């Protein structure tokens, strides 16, 4: 028996902490989704299939050696960019946005792929460069990041493009981008805000920002989502209204309960206690990622784990800030909980990569 266990441990790459907590999160997600979809069994079963498929995918992705990702990162990046271009040309248009490629059995949101391949490529690119990162490499990396971000933004998909931007910048930051450079860039960004406001934001996006500043100015119009979300969360109280008892969710007051606003449903039905339990699990996963990043075998693994875990963290943060009404409404799912195909699978893949990076050891660390 012990021998068998030893073989498994040596041949199979597996992090039980992440695997258990993500599985737990996924199962909770299914329970929440069943209520958020107003007891829609079809939706829940479909999501279950994605969850099972995603867990298998995570396991499979964690088996190859990190060098496999490092060596093929350029190939992955080029493939995902081709998909982005294909989306711009052949994409399926929904509500005025071209974000999806219809593969027949599955509609793929291509930006969810590049969200992973870009940080992995950047980590590989910086693997053998001298650190802290020099100006030329910074320039190359930033050009790549902004090109991809802009390709996603024009779909338009503001939420994902922001996440991709953040993920790319994390890698550069972790690779030791100088504080002076950061300070100057930030100054330029602040100065260019009026330009962005006038030229890069759609009117509805501007309206969302204005609504955030004063949701009561138009409670039945653009402020509706934020107002109803706050009512849902607030009326949950400490203990919540009970599973499937949330009137805000079940009487259609809350918008997008299965995706962006699923946290509001959870908060309404399970209260502050439920919110704390959910956040505790997220927090545990993040701490585990921090630990793994610090103990990673080389610079590529460190940067990749750091970048992908911060991608995960940013997504959670943006989603929660949005439903609580701290930032404007942008389409952003709650990882492992919200209904979704591509976005859900992309997180299983990310964590598959993280586990791969964390579990493949070398005798001599670089």
């Amino acid at each position, binding site marked *: 028996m012990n021998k068998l266990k030893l073989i498994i441990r040596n041949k199979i790459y597996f992090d039980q902490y992440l695997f258990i907590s993500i599985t737990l999160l996924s199962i909770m997600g299914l329970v929440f989704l069943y209520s958020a979809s107003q007891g829609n069994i079809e939706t829940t079963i479909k999501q279950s299939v994605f969850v099972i498929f995603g867990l298998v995918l995570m396991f499979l992705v964690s088996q190859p050696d990190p060098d496999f990702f490092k060596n093929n990162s350029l190939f992955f990046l080029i493939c995902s960019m081709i998909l982005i271009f294909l989306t711009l040309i052949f994409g399926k248009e929904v509500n005025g946005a071209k974000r999806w490629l219809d593969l027949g059995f599955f509609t793929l949101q291509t930006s969810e792929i590049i969200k992973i391949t870009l940080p992995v490529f950047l980590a590989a690119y910086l693997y053998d460069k001298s650190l802290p990162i020099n100006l030329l490499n910074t320039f190359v990396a930033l050009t790549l990041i902004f090109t991809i971000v802009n390709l996603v933004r024009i779909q338009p998909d503001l939420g994902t493009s922001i996440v991709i931007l953040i993920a790319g910048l994390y890698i550069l930051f972790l690779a030791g981008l100088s504080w002076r450079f950061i300070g100057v860039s930030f100054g330029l960004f602040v100065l260019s805000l009026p330009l962005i406001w006038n030229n890069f934001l759609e009117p509805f996006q501007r309206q969302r920002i204005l609504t955030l500043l004063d949701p009561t100015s138009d409670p039945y119009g653009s402020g509706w989502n934020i107002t*109803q979300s706050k009512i849902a*969360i*607030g009326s949950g109280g400490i203990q919540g209204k009970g599973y499937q008892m949330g009137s805000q969710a079940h009487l*259609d007051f809350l918008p997008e309960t299965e995706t962006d606003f699923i946290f509001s449903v959870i908060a309404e039905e399970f209260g502050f206690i439920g919110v704390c339990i959910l956040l505790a699990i997220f927090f545990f996963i993040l701490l585990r990622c921090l630990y793994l990043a610090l103990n990673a075998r080389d610079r590529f693994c*460190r*940067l990749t784990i750091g970048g992908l875990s*911060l991608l995960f963290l940013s997504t959670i943060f943006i989603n929660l800030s949005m439903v609580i009404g701290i930032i404007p409404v942008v389409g952003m799912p709650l990882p492992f909980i919200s209904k979704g195909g591509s976005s859900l699978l992309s997180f299983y893949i990310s964590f598959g990569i993280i586990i791969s990076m964390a579990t493949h050891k070398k005798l001599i660390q670089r």
Partner: protein
Amino acid sequence: MINLNQRLSEKKNFFNRLLFVYIFFGILFLYLIYKTFTLQVSSYSDYELASLENKTREFLIQPRRGIIYDRNGEIIVNNIPSYNLIANPAGLDDIDSLILDIQKIIELSDSEIKTINDNFPSKKRLNRELILKKDLTPKEIAQFEVRSYKFPELQIAVRYSRVNLFPYIFSHSIGYIGNLSEEELEEILISQNQRPKESIFSYSNGFITGKTGIENVYDKKLRGKFGKKTYEVNASGRILKEIETIPPINGEDIFTSLDIKSQNVAFNQLDSRRGAVVAVKIDDGAIVTYVSSPSFSVNKIANGLSKKEFNDLILNEDKLFFDRAAQGRYSPASTIKPAIGLYGLKKKLIDWNFTIKDPGFFVLPEDGRIYRGWKKGGHGEINLQDAIIESSNTFFFSLAYQTEIEDLREHLSYFGFGKNICKDCFMPDIGLLPSPEWKMNTHNFGWYKGDTVNMGVGQGYINATPLQLAYYSAFLATKGRLNNFSFVQDSKDHKKDTFISENINLNDWAKIHESMVGVIENPRGTAGRLRPLKDYIVAAKSGTVELVSTETKEDYQIIREIEGQRDHAIIIAFGPMPNPEYAVSVVIENGESGGSVAGPVAIAVLNSLIKE
């Protein structure tokens, strides 16, 4: 091999930066948790309420107004159900074809079809009932019922109309109802701890309120309390299920003291002439007859008039809406004489044996001005009793001449002049009991002795409403012990408002009654021709209100060519003597003779009250 130090420093640098980001987000997450805590714990009650208001919709349920009865328990005003064809629009898609189908059974006018089409979209969206046709006839109901299986979404439901079963004779006493303004509604709802919201109506004309008469004065009692129905609704306002129903409390019924029979008699006797009749039961001051003429139909007012009909009503030169009984001001004329006589007795200015010589006029000593009586040549040597029976002006001119105006005013106010004597009348006028201050303020002239002399025969500035004259009549009948008037029988409130004039002894009261009986029974009485109209004894005093002052009968013949210049006819009466039960006053505008024109009306009303 890469330098070990370099590797360690890179690792340390990475560690610092990752930790920096984690701490940065850690702080942000703490803020998020704090915000969630604020929403869910600190502001919980606000959001709990907001969530509750989101998911529930409340409807007011309109109560029915109380029924109004006459003193014998006969219904005067009732809520009459009418049948409406009502659709549940949730199951309807094609309203036009439904209208076509209905038209095969029940006729729909163009305006009805327009209303249906206008209301359909919103009613369907909100899942509320849609009224297709109001006031179905029994035939239409029958025609629909046999085919109702074809229309699962339709039903016939009851809505009420407020109907006065005697629409003309109670127009001014009971009054009418009308629509409630938003402000009035809000005020009522707040008083019942409710808030304005959508309503389930009991009446086909919506929110109603008493506008005039008893309907107005007793509105609070009649209106009842609104009920409430609470539904669960979704975000689009669609009704999902009923949560709670608090039934309305219908208004209290009002048992009035009015008597349908005597109302009818008074109304028919007045026969559309301009005037008023008020009769009361003297032991408790309950108003039994209250008619102002000519009249109008309260049902038409309450349930909708065309613009032309409305204009005809308000432009009518007889002023149909004008409540002559409580708001018409008339000089009391000779009917005031018994009160003046009592003043003389009280002040010991005269006694029953005191006489004067009546040459047919009175000369005011101050300026030689002449005040004439109605009879040329006068009544000769005359005492108080005969002065009342024959209605000598000279006697009362000279008696009034000896009075102080302030004393006389105080005395007359006991009899109801110049004040409100009714507990529940709608906007009663208090008439005018003039004073020197009043005259100075109004006419900018001082009070002349001649003004006091004129008051002695009820002419000049003094005036009173028929309601006040009825009070005066009842006050004489009860010898000064009388309740304020009321339209409602209320046995609990039976104590009398006594302000008996102590200085008038019972013998004087009896002699006054005797004199007033003489007005009819004595061959010289001014209302002698009423004698055969009854088979019991009635005390009365007639009066004739001069609108234009004339010197001679010939002059009067000239001015009476114009109807509006003819004298008003007035009478006050009570009976049966010697123990009177009812008192009455009658005013007929331009009726000319109190005794022979107003008198028969008063006797007919007394007959209807006493003979049963």
